[in-house]
């Protein structure tokens, strides 16, 4: 429950800020000069802030669009960008890179989406087969009821008549009704459900939807004509029993008959910039994930090569044989 909303004075009278404030009537509004004054304070406690959530509504005066990170995969796209107009999400995943990257655990949402779409338009002219990921630093789908970003991107996608463009909304939320707010006609908007074994979800992804709800929502989106992807990325193989967990996950996908209709399935072992891992160990000392054994290669902490290949190949085989995902739709992260 958000009890305080910090709103930049410049954003205060925007329809976005007004809409958000209307939806949280009990919250105290604190006017601020710049969002950075709250988000980048010294000595903040990320984990504590995640548990005691506040919202910052700001105006982004820097860039919205960045080239996709080498640690992410583009699922076969020639050009890969990600767009950041909201930071942090309502989930509390143990392995989330945001806890290493961001100074604050508070939700941050930018109100000037027109500027964002203008910037995206410029970038899109450059690429051919382009992936634009719009929810890496957040889960906009889970927060659709508050921000309405999915609807905005759906409207934007509708105006795009570009072959090869994918605007990807990635989520761990199992609410189906948000799908109804979007339009599948452009073929540009793709929903990606981030999934893991039910055991991993229960242990490492607090405050997110259960596996069955996510897969049901994915099946619903497919039925509504959307392009749907699954991300088994990061694959978490910790302790004994992970294989059986992923087997059951693939069985669940297969049981819904969606494996053959998926646009893509992204798969990769856990990896994170080594600097972020150090911060995660401080911020999430009760999670085993940051304390697992990793190799550091080029500044990135990742499973030892042998383990990574073993894990991803095992899961890829389960995806093919149990979930019925065609080989050419499975994209393995390659470092």
């Amino acid at each position, binding site marked *: 429950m958000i009890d305080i909303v910090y709103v930049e004075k410049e954003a205060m009278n925007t329809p976005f800020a007004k809409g958000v404030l209307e939806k949280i009537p009990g919250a105290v509004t604190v006017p601020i000069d710049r969002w950075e004054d709250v988000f980048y304070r010294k000595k903040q406690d990320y984990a504590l802030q995640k548990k005691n959530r506040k919202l910052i509504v700001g105006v982004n005066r820097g860039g919205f669009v960045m080239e996709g990170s080498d640690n992410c995969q583009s699922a076969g796209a020639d050009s890969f960008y990600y767009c950041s107009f909201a930071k942090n999400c309502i989930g509390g995943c143990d392995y989330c890179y945001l806890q290493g990257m961001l100074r604050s655990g508070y939700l941050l949402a930018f109100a000037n989406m027109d500027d964002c779409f203008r910037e995206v338009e410029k970038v899109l002219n450059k690429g051919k087969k382009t992936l634009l990921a719009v929810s890496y630093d957040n889960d906009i789908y889970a927060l659709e009821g508050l921000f309405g970003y999915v609807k905005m991107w759906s409207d934007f996608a509708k105006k795009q008549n570009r072959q090869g463009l994918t605007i990807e909304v990635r989520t761990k939320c199992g609410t189906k009704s948000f799908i109804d707010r979007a339009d599948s006609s452009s073929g540009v908007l793709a929903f990606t459900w981030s999934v893991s074994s039910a055991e991993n979800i229960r242990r490492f992804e607090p405050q997110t939807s259960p596996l069955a709800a996510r897969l049901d929502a994915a099946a619903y989106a497919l039925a509504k004509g959307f392009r749907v992807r699954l991300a088994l990325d990061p694959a978490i193989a910790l302790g004994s029993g992970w294989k059986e967990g992923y087997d059951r996950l693939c069985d669940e996908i297969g049981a819904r008959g969606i494996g053959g209709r998926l646009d893509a399935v992204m798969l990769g072992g856990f990896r994170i910039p080594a600097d972020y891992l150090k911060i995660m160990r401080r911020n999430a*000392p009760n999670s085993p994930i940051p*304390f697992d054994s990793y190799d550091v290669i080029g500044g990135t902490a990742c499973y030892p090569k042998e383990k990574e290949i073993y894990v991803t190949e095992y899961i890829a085989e389960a995806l093919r044989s149990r979930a019925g995902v065609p080989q050419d739709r499975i994209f393995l992260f390659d470092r």
Partner: protein
Amino acid sequence: MVIIQTALYLEAKTPIEYLKLREAKNVPLPVRLFCSDDKRFAAVVTGTGSLNACAGTAAALTYLGAGRGDLFINFGIAGAADDCGLCIGDIARCVKCTAEGERPFYPDIIFGSRFKLAEIETVKKVTDISSDGCLPKAADMELCHAFSAANMFLGPESLISYKVISDYASKTAENGGRLDEKAVETLVSAAWKKLLPEIEKVSEEASSAFEKNARELPSEVLTLYENVCEKLSLSYSNREILKNKLWKDCLIGVSVKDRLYEVLGVSEDELPKDKKGREAFLKERLLCESGGDNP
């Protein structure tokens, strides 16, 4: 430790008496410092004005060795802006702190009750202030600079300020509705009666939140770990790697004690003599995965 900071002794008198704080004598500090015998509470009286607040806070927190897990609570009287929703006797909790020429500071509102959230503007002298309509607003003469100093030691979740409204910082009100010293003392004492249980609550909530973030191997495992480090003459980085591995195994329910005992049972003659050999031994005996599902 909960560190209460005020400008005047009058503002700290009630908690000093209630919490049985004793004045620290012969301490090399430019401020008056009071501490409880169990070191759970301290009060520091810095004097009025921004310079005293800043220097006094920095000096006291250095002396007390303040750090993560401690709380800094500023308390004092303040003048309210006209018609901003704050009346004489109200307690306001600072959610935004401003001062001319300074960047605004926002203490986190995580622990304790909210009271009335307000913007506190730190001014050089009592003057006319006005609220922007969103938040109640009051003026004091220290807070912004006390917070600036305290934030060098503590995070924004640990910085708290309560103000009791003693007058109106307004030119329009006759004499700002200012009270005489005796009346202020009564007001401050009444405010503390409400705040003392609040401070207990804040302290308990903070202790519980910070405890959850502590990483500590079970004591038996920790002793075994230290003995293994010594036996294998592990470097700092290998100690950390081993500690992380043991911590992870404890979290996922893998028993680690047997393996540590086994290593401690290896005779000196059987141990590799060179550094590389010992690292390999460490990897093979203690760092390898034991779940059976790993390559």
